[in-house]
């Protein structure tokens, strides 16, 4: 005769047993990942030496507060603009052709060096000195270069701008695969 019953005597685990179980679990985990643990410990030591640990600890300890302050601080037009400019600059950097730019940059450097050398020169340059200078091959090459640069700068590039133009006015969206080349 087995009457219906509902009460259940649970297996009670004493605190000591529970502790023993947990300890065993942790021990096993430690042994299983011995190499990584040792390496992490080394890294932690380095961090401790440099005082990074206490910084990180404080940061996480006050996580919500710090996050809130950070975010609210960051939510200003200046910060947004900084981030925005950073992202934009990264984009612009991507469009530079460094191969072509290198010789020009070298020349600019040389020019700057020369100017640095003679920055205190009191010498004055008259119109005839200027004309005479054109005969100097170095100056003549510079002038030609600059004229070409001015010509290039005057070219129509609006359709390449991605930050000011509507997609349908952008050159890249007029190609079938949305790529410039």
């Amino acid at each position: 005769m087995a009457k219906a019953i509902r009460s259940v005597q649970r297996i009670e685990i004493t605190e000591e047993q529970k502790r023993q179980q947990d300890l065993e679990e942790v021990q096993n985990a430690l042994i299983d990942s011995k190499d990584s643990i040792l390496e992490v410990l080394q890294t932690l030591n380095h961090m401790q030496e440099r005082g990074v640990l206490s910084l990180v600890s404080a940061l996480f300890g006050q996580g919500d507060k710090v996050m809130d302050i950070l975010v609210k601080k960051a939510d200003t037009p200046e910060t947004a603009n900084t981030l925005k400019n950073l992202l934009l600059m990264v984009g612009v950097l991507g469009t530079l052709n460094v191969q072509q730019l290198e010789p020009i940059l070298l020349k600019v450097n040389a020019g700057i060096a020369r100017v640095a050398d003679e920055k205190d020169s009191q010498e004055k340059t008259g119109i005839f000195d200027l004309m005479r200078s054109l005969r100097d091959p170095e100056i003549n090459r510079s002038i030609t270069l600059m004229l070409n640069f001015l010509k290039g700068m005057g070219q129509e590039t609006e359709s390449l701008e991605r930050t000011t133009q509507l997609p349908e006015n952008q050159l890249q969206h007029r190609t079938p695969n949305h790529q410039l080349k």
Partner: protein
Amino acid sequence: MPNSIHVTVNGVETPAQLDQTILQFLTESSIEIPHVCYHPALGAIETCDTCIVSVNGELVRSCSTKLKPGDRIDTISPDVKQSQTMAMDKILYNHELYCTVCDYNNGGCEVHNTVKAMKINHQSIPFDHKPYEEDNSHPFYRYDPDQCILCGRCVEACQDLQVTETLRIDWDRERPRVIWDDDVPINESSCVSCGHCSTVCPCNAMMEKGMVGEAGFLTGIAKQTLRPMIEITKGVETGYGSILAISDMESAMRDERIKKTKTVCTYCGVGCSFDVWTKDREILKVEPQMKAPANNISTCVKGKFGWSFVNSEERLTKPLIREGDSFREAEWEEALALIAGKFTEIKDKYGPQSMGFITSSKCTNEESYLMQKLARGVIGSNNVDNCSRYCQTPATVGLLRTVGHGGDSGSIKDIAMSELVIMIGTNTSESHPVLSTRIKRAQKLHGQKTIVADLRKHEMADRADLFIRPKPGSDIVWLSAVTKYIIDMGWADEDFIHEKVNGYDQFVASLQGFTLGYAEDQTGLSRETLIQIATAIYEAKTTCILWAMGVTQHIGGSDTSTAISNLLLVTGNHAKPGAGAYPLRGHNNVQGASDFGSAPANMPGYERVDDPVVRQKYEQAWGTSLPEQPGLNNHEMVEAIHDGKLKAMYLKGEDMGIVDSNINHVHSAFEKLDFFVVQDIFLTRTAEFADVVLPAAPSFEKEGTFTNTERRIQRLYQVFEPLGDSKPDWQIIMAVANRLGAGWNYEHPSEIMDEAAKLSPIYAGVTYERLEGYKSLQWPVAPDGTDSPVLYTEGFNFPDGKANLFPVKWSIPLQFPEEYDIHVNNGRLLEHFHEGNMTYKSKGISSKTPKVFLEVSPELAAERGLRDGTLVRLTSPFGSVKVECLITDRVQGKEVYLPMNDSGDAAINLLTSSEADKDTDTPAYKEINAKMEILRQEGVSPLPRINHRNGNPQPQIGVQVQKKWARKDYVFPGDLVKKGAEALWQKR
């Protein structure tokens, strides 16, 4: 090919198929066209305008434009691009892109992905907040109008796929939004929580609450901090490109901690499959997939949201052993040793026939196979059964008699494409919710006709073209009369009968007595109604008949099922797509539990145990001798216990002490058992009588396969590790068997399937590889893996390939003395499952439907002075229940409806008798009368005001995009571009 045509795409001539939209064609040709509102399950919604292309020089929406021969399609011209961009701009006006801190940033956001694909960097119309609050009222999902792009997918899904007709977009407001019913909070509407809207939403507007604040790394941040973060994110935007790159990284990181596992639902027999998203043991959401064969993107409340029971604190985590007046938790070792000792002792003392085994239709095919292998091969007893005995065995018998396979004739797709669907004794939209959506959709959009025969005016009855209420238990009479009338009128399908059916003349003779007049008297249906039914079947090219417990749970359940199949044969509605017999299986694996041999007379695949050839096959494979005589079914087991013949029982996953009929009788049997082992995930009512309770693991914690009502076999994968010390049932059965010396050595369920497939012809070609992921097979499966979506196209399953018309008689339902004047109908509710072990664990479901109630008619209420909340006692000759009343016109006269969702004082089976179907012993649950007395007149309604039944649906077709187009502020982007209205555009 007759449909093949040629079109020109961007100047290149390409072959194409007719009957396709341009969007479908282009997508299939790998030409990417942006689209946001289009969804393959919903079709063209036409709200987003992003899929505009140029066809023969005209800018059109490619989602809704059909392909025509010779079309010249341009997808790249500046006009096309400009139109698409304008459309997208309108979307971004309604949706703020803060992807990195958005819970929907999981790679599937259509807004995000379209912005990325179109390389949109800026919007000309800036985002503008809508003047509405988030709606968080519903327990399972929330709506954020501010993020809603008004694509209308949710509305389309609610109106035309799920067909609950709750959602609309109010296009008349200055800022349109989605509204529920007549604009009430979500939780107060007619929403049935099916989850379609949150599944199809292309962005984060409609989202499962499990996801909110959980899916992302940064989304759990407190609201006050989140807003400034969104502002920074927006302020920094140098164009969306870089923002999307960062959010893509964050989204990729989420894959590390969110696990997505395919599983198969364990509620009804429809067999919905879906991905479960989890983070540790937390369920974030259930996401059904287009490739899910039975349900695509559909779910019901239980499948979408009803899984919290898996993590319930009430789960059994250790074996329990009875000791005096309580159970004691024990280790597996001790429990198994005890079971092995007792089983051996009882078997030695009383013989193998003194032991009974009951498997579960909740468990996998592999587990059902092992249970019967344990019973037959290890113990030596055919006393093995499963709960299909309680529901669908009569249907199986009816089909085996007439057409040869005990399963649905076709797939859910066949039901959807049928011209006429007849539903008899099936409360489809509550018992098989997703399947019912296919009928509701076909009826609403495609002119399908439906006839419903039921006592109760449930949703399907409400929507039916013809709803009939025959007297209880008289279905066989009107079915036979309609069949006879069809034959008499010369409407029978003579060619079909001549070619494919045996026994016609004898069958016609057997119908002699079923005249219209006789049927009119016995069923209460008018002659005109009967003729109307016959005419509808005659005029429809294809007819499906669906039936369930309202047919089978009668003393003549097998015969009525047979009559249904007879009618289908006479009218040629078998063996072709869109037609046939559909006994809707009630549990996820009712079909599979029987397919795999958990039945006293059948080995796996319905081969008989008393066939020596069959037995020999298994004896060889298992290396053991098998008992010859069919064993006891579960109904007979209860009697055998009372007779002192059955001494021990091993029962898994079945709350027999609640779901069997006449449970007082069953409980007293349990008390007489010498040794009783129950295996379950909870300490059920049945387990309370056990000597040993074994903790099992639910579907989320194991692998295996289920077979749904379409005979479709599908794999489930493991979502979680088993909780505590619980184990998958197949491992437990194997452990028990091995203690008894079986020496089984299965390491994975696939090995069990391999063994079963070798032995059972209908499963011959089933392998786990062929079922990988969302792949499925519908049995019979040939050794080469060819399956059978539609049965009998190559002949019926008899030696001569012909079907048999099987004459049947009417068994008059049980008669009760006059004092028992109330007919107690019973069955399911949408949101709870059976005794409620699983669904009451869901806080969300319980908040809206906290307890069972008795539906009483307004007439009865008036006569007896009943109100909502009146507590009554119903007493039958077998027992009594106490339950609170709910007055509704779903029931009429002296018929009441008691849902089966209670395991206490209102458990329906306290009333039911031990009478059963004469052919299968399936209890006659539906033949019960009771008398009613009022215990307390005043009370609070047992059904809260916040329940979908109190909602106010607003039917319409789709999202009504015409209303959007008629708005003053709407211009078709293609028109704008064509007009060259660049200036106008810039100004806005």
